[in-house]
């Protein structure tokens, strides 16, 4: 049913339709609206699940681990510092092969503390052994959750659904909320591969030494390779059942004849597509490749999608200091002898990514005038002044505060 609805609310309603049996929640902006809504549904009795207010994200994932190992469908949501705080358990859930589904309302990581959107949090866990799916719209966010439960449980591997904080979680958009019956048909009851059961006891979580640890890790890798086959199948099945495209590995947009292709993840792709259309109107042959499945990394699908183009711009929503972009590194691996590649770090900590800036940057790139690593809309003057301060005085003080003073901002700016 079509609704004009807040992203968080849409995701909460859909997750509820996936019938999670155990939900554990610890609040952190911008994830709060999702778990608040789920909590209300459980309280009202609309959702038959155990809703547990845990004392930390670490506990949230731990509760999910216990529930999942006991054969229950477990769900939780977090963001930013919360994801880092549960990090140890995040890796553990994957190691134990437990099909937990978790929403990450992407947000920057401090210091300096910052509640706004970028991908630093999810990117920091890209090697935790979780499948990572990135949503472009609220609609896709809720669709991906339906697919996530199916993928996770079929593979016995946890899945992280990443949706941009505020941009998707707090935005009111048109979304098609499925019917319970459709979801039930798509997400069958959980059949665990391993389960704690007094009538058939097993020990789960043994200590494994050098004699078998490599094999265990290899199997985790094999499971991820399997996921690369499964995810498109699930997406196809989803399209058949729900009559719309969602999920899958990658999503090309006007790439057929493109000389220049912009690669990105998440909600920024919408703005990029608008910018691309505007540039197409000026005759520039430019396209977009959205990465929906970032882990496992769909190297082949990406290589195919980018085979034709001569130049790449990888739009990074997170920074690997001293390296640049994490996605860029993965793509370079997928295309060792690929086209010229520009890494553009954009929209860190809530900095708006505007069509205007994108158009300018892409025009520059098309002209081959863009450097290998660019910080979009970087206030070079501001940063330069702080660098100068640091050169001049040993005790130059905290940079973040210095620059704020420099700006003299109180109210947030529009652009």
């Amino acid at each position, binding site marked *: 049913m079509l609704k004009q609805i807040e992203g968080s609310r849409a995701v909460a309603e859909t997750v509820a339709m996936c019938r999670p049996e155990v939900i554990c929640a610890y609040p952190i902006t911008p994830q709060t609206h999702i778990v608040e809504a789920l909590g209300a549904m459980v309280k009202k009795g609309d959702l038959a699940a155990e809703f547990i207010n845990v004392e930390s994200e670490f506990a949230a994932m731990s509760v999910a681990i216990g529930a999942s190992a006991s054969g229950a469908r477990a769900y939780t949501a977090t963001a930013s510092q919360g994801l880092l705080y549960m990090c140890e358990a995040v890796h553990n859930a994957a190691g134990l*092969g437990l099909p937990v589904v978790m929403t990450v309302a992407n947000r920057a990581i401090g210091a300096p503390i910052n509640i706004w959107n970028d991908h630093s949090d999810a990117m920091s866990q890209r090697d935790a052994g979780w499948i990572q799916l990135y949503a472009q719209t609220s609609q896709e966010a809720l669709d991906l959750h339906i697919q996530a439960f199916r993928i996770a449980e079929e593979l*016995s591997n946890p899945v992280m659904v990443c949706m941009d904080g505020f941009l998707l979680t707090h935005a009111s958009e048109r979304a098609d909320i499925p019917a319970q019956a459709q979801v039930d048909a798509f997400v069958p009851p959980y059949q665990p591969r391993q389960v704690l059961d007094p009538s058939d006891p*097993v020990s789960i979580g*043994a200590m*494994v030494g050098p004699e078998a640890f490599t094999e265990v890790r290899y*199997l985790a890798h094999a499971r991820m390779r399997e996921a690369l086959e499964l995810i498109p199948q699930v997406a196809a099945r989803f399209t058949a059942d729900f009559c719309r495209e969602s999920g899958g590995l990658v999503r090309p947009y006007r790439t057929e004849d493109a000389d220049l292709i912009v690669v990105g993840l998440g909600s920024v792709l919408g703005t990029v597509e608008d910018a691309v259309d505007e540039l197409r109107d000026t005759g520039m042959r430019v396209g977009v490749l959205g990465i929906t499945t970032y882990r496992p990394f769909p190297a082949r699908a990406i290589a195919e999608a980018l085979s034709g183009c001569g130049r790449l711009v990888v739009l990074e929503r997170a920074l690997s200091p001293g390296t640049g972009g994490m996605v860029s590194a993965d793509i370079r691996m997928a295309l060792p002898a690929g086209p010229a590649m520009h890494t553009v770090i954009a929209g860190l900590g809530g900095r708006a990514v505007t069509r205007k800036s994108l158009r300018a940057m892409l025009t520059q790139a098309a002209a081959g005038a863009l450097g290998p690593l660019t910080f979009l809309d970087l206030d070079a003057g501001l940063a330069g002044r702080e660098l100068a301060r640091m050169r001049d005085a040993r005790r130059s003080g905290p940079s973040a505060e210095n620059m704020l003073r420099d700006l003299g901002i109180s109210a947030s700016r529009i652009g």
Partner: protein
Amino acid sequence: MERKPFAITLDVGSSRANKTGAWRTERPVYVSNLPPCNNACPAGENIQQWLYRAEEGEAGSASLGGRPLQPPEKGGSASLGGTTPLQPPEKSGSASLGGTTSLQPPEKSGYEAAWRQIMADNPLPAIMGRVCYRPCEIACNRAQLDSAVGINSVERFLGDEAIRHGWQVPVDAAPTGKRVLVVGAGPSGLSAAYHLTRMGHAVTIRDANAEPGGMMRYGIPRYRLPRDILDAEINRILAMGVTLELNAPVTDLTATLTAGGFDAAFVAVGAHIGKRAYIPAGDSAKIIDAVTMLRGMEDSSPPLLGRRVAVYGGGNTAMDAARTARRLGAADAVVVYRRTRDRMPAHDSEVSEALEEGVTIRWLSTVARADQGKLLIEKMRLDESGFPQPTGEFEDLDADCLVLALGQDADLSVLESVPGVTFSSGVVDVGPDLMTGHPGIFAGGDMVPAERTVTVAIGHGKKAARSIDAWLRGATRVVPPRHGLAAASALNTWYYADAPATVRAQLDTAHRITTFDEVTGGLDESTALFEARRCLSCGNCFGCDNCYGVCPDNAVIKLGTGQYEIDYDYCKGCGICAAECPCGAIEMEPEQT
């Protein structure tokens, strides 16, 4: 369960593949050591074993969850070969507390089983329970914890139970066709007759007296041993087919043996000739010996002693004489003794009971002269060697009668004419098997060199019976090695509750000095059970399951109630089982590498 995730998930209990026994440097082994009570019993009773059965109480196995009781063998009876030491059967690298050689069918348990266990060694429990001087209780390790187990009182309880229920002892052995003559129906003779009969031999007892029992009847006052008890236990032996001939003194033993067609003889005529010491005396002085006096108590008319009676001597007989005198109406009963109390041969209980009954004692005194109604007493002093020396100080003591209790001599006439039999210092020489110098003729009791108590005599009877049985079979008896003594230091007393001994009721003194009623009362069912359960089971497993419970490696296998096996496949040799065994029945032995 279907295929499990590799390495992450494991099948339960799979660690049994890891045989941790290889870590071991010491191995625990179950042992059975000789309890001090058993060690001390002159009658060779397996006390710990019968207490173990007595713990089960009236109901016996019924109280044990209805399970047939398989008690661990109480090792190391002091009785010569009464039980067999435990041999851990070697199986699959593991030793176990071996099977039992219980003396009665498993379903029999509780008091009757306990009683039958006593009867394996001693046919007179009810008597023992009254007249034994309890060396077992002196040896009891529990004395170091609170107070010794009241073994004697439980034995008496069991003996009385047997009489009350009329329990009998069957003769299972086939008749051997051998005939054995027992001379003397005292404790030794009765004991020998009983054991020989159980072995299938035909036994005839000859006794010079009108009634059987020897010193038990003619020496021990009835206030210590009621005659109905005495008769009941003797009759139970006779009922087994023993021939008893009374008023039948044996003068010529060899002749009697040939005439009666006997294959062997056991002579135990005791020692009932009162020792006479030379005492200057006036014509009218009244002097009798204690043996005669006590014996006179069994005649129709009791001896006349007068109102003031002096007893000369410091043994149990002296006490018996003095206490009897009180009961015969003597206002004063004075014991005159040369030394001090700590050197007195009489047992403490006798002395204290005598004092309670108003008997007085003159320490460090000898009778220098006896006259009518009066004695002259010389004071003594102990020299450095503890020997009494005259002081030359004299004093008078009013006494209508002087009873001499200076010990007894044996009447050896029955053996004097027998070739090969030798004597020294008034007793018969015998070998360790109690055989005299004459083949086939054995002797025991008070007439051979030993402590002269009923209990020792009963032990002689059993020992002689076994020797005679072996001799009749043309064999020589091999005495099995004794087990090591169960030391108190090996106990883990934490597991024993504070449970002081039960005090046996005693007749009030007023009543005591006017009647010959039994002075010391018995235990009732509950107190007897309480006493039995105070046993620490020193040196022998009693099935508390501690070893089974406390092993961190589940390396103790429980085979059944009170039966365990160390699983050396997994035992790491930590030693907790040995440390936490209450009774020291597990020892650690170095592994042979």
